[in-house]
């Protein structure tokens, strides 16, 4: 199998049991009309990319459930026979968060969105590795789950953090020397779909700045 060595340029993570506070929306999305339309995933995405010092380029975004709040709003509106919000519908697609990033940062580069269940963040890393290899550029690799919706306890059996996100900026390394395979450095209570990328961010925090990824 083909492997790629990647330098970890920067990393950031954030999570909260219910709702992540102080995502610095006013600074990161100064236009009020735009800010009012942002989904929770979009706000977390803007925050993490800023913390990583990334303001443009190729993005690979991962989310197992993506815009669950907007999806729930639509389903409840259908059930109640009320008017569907056009904004909720346009915000319900899985590429909403990176698309808002592209709008705000005027980033016209490629966006790929991965949704591979509980291996979402691993596949997001693999896809980011491919994009980094093909382009030779820095790639933002970010995975987010915001599942803090009304009645979530009816189905949530796996996570105690209802909002969580993690991001790393990756670039192809010149060689594989000293590159580490991804260690299991999970954060307990975080949904499994984010754990592989959490591990990479934790490796970076521990001083490891080069990883090896199988495509």
């Amino acid at each position, binding site marked *: 199998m083909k492997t790629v060595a990647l330098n970890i340029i920067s990393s950031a993570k954030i999570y909260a049991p219910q709702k992540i506070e102080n995502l610095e929306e006013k600074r990161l999305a100064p236009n009020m009309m735009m800010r009012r339309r942002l989904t929770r995933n979009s706000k977390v995405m803007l925050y993490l990319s800023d913390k990583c010092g990334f303001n443009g380029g190729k993005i690979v975004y991962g989310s197992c459930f993506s815009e669950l709040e907007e999806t729930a709003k639509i389903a409840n509106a259908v059930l109640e026979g009320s008017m569907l919000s056009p904004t909720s519908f346009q915000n319900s697609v899985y590429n909403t968060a990176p698309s808002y990033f592209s*709008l705000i940062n005027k980033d016209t580069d490629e966006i*790929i969105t991965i949704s591979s*269940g509980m291996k979402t963040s691993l596949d997001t890393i693999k896809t980011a590795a491919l994009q980094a290899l093909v382009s030779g550029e820095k790639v933002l690799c970010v995975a987010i789950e915001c599942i803090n919706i009304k009645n*979530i306890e009816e189905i949530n059996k796996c996570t105690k953090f209802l909002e969580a996100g993690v991001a790393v900026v990756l670039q192809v390394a010149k060689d594989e020397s000293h590159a580490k395979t991804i260690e299991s450095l999970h954060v307990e209570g975080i949904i499994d779909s984010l754990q592989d990328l959490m591990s990479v961010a934790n490796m970076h925090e521990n001083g490891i700045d080069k990883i090896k990824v199988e495509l």
Partner: protein
Amino acid sequence: MKSYINNYELHCNAGNTAELMKAIYAKKSAIVEDETFLADATAGLGIMEYDNIYSLMKEVVSKVLKSSNLDNFQNTLLVLGSSVGGMQECEEIFYAQKSYKAINPNKLSMNALTDFLVKEFSFYDSRAISTACTSSANALLLAKRLIDVEAYDNILVVGADGLCRSTVMGFHALSVLSAKKCRPFDVKRDGMNVAEAVAVLLVQNTKTDNSIELKGVGASSDAYHMTNPNPEALGAISSMKDALSDAGISCLDIDYVNAHGTATLANDKVEALAVEKLFGNSVYVSSTKAITGHTLGAAGALEAIVSCEAIKLGFIPPQTGLETQENENIKVNKESVKMDIKNIVSNSFAFGGNNTSIVLGACT
């Protein structure tokens, strides 16, 4: 390493691949005017005959495997593109139970479809991509790049989306849904038709007698608006230019643009402008969504198959539903054109300003 599309099959409202191509060349739209999805309005929809999306995927994937040079998919990567994933089944449970309790979260997510196929066919590995209406076009983009870098020899690309009440009502809420059969590029077009399909292509690094080459891929973001395309068509032009560059060919080498052509006012105006700016009137242009409707996340894969068939059959697909062309500076062909087709650009555009173009060509 070159990428070849060696086998494919689909199922949509017009039937399988052969039946769809027959409908395209006969200009026989398979859109129906449905009164069951919307309480207060008629919707033009592309509705398939099938039991459920899972069994249909199994059937279509089995046909591709049987026609291929593979015994199984154990050394094959599955890359699936979908915009709704397992939503079709889950939303019906929610509407019936009025609660989330009976919903299996693993069935809600996008990879519900890949999980099913991996269990049925034992793929080496899988990825699920969801970039709305460019999902399966982006699956083809990744497949080509993975073969380019020699990571895989065989990649099965699946585009699959079933009709959901929420998507039909959502597009209705956006006021882009036509009550009738859609009319891409017509001055009197009044919107799109939501539709469903399963489209499957086997992409390999080896050429067969039946191969079509996946020559180039390109992608861009508009960075303009969540649902409206950049009015100067910069994103669409960029994705097409990148696909041509990746293919190592120029605009002059393209014979036909299989347009995204949803028949919304915004898309067709901007896509026509993009084609005009890039190709002038040197290429034929048409949208086969007039036959199939817009199959959302499956559209890129479905229209890649249509493009492969057009090359093999030697006929440019005609534009069904066109009476008066809005942009007369491009060459939208009302009738089939017989020609030796060398290269085709197929476009897919999505919410968020996500643009993907692919170049398919005859093998030389």
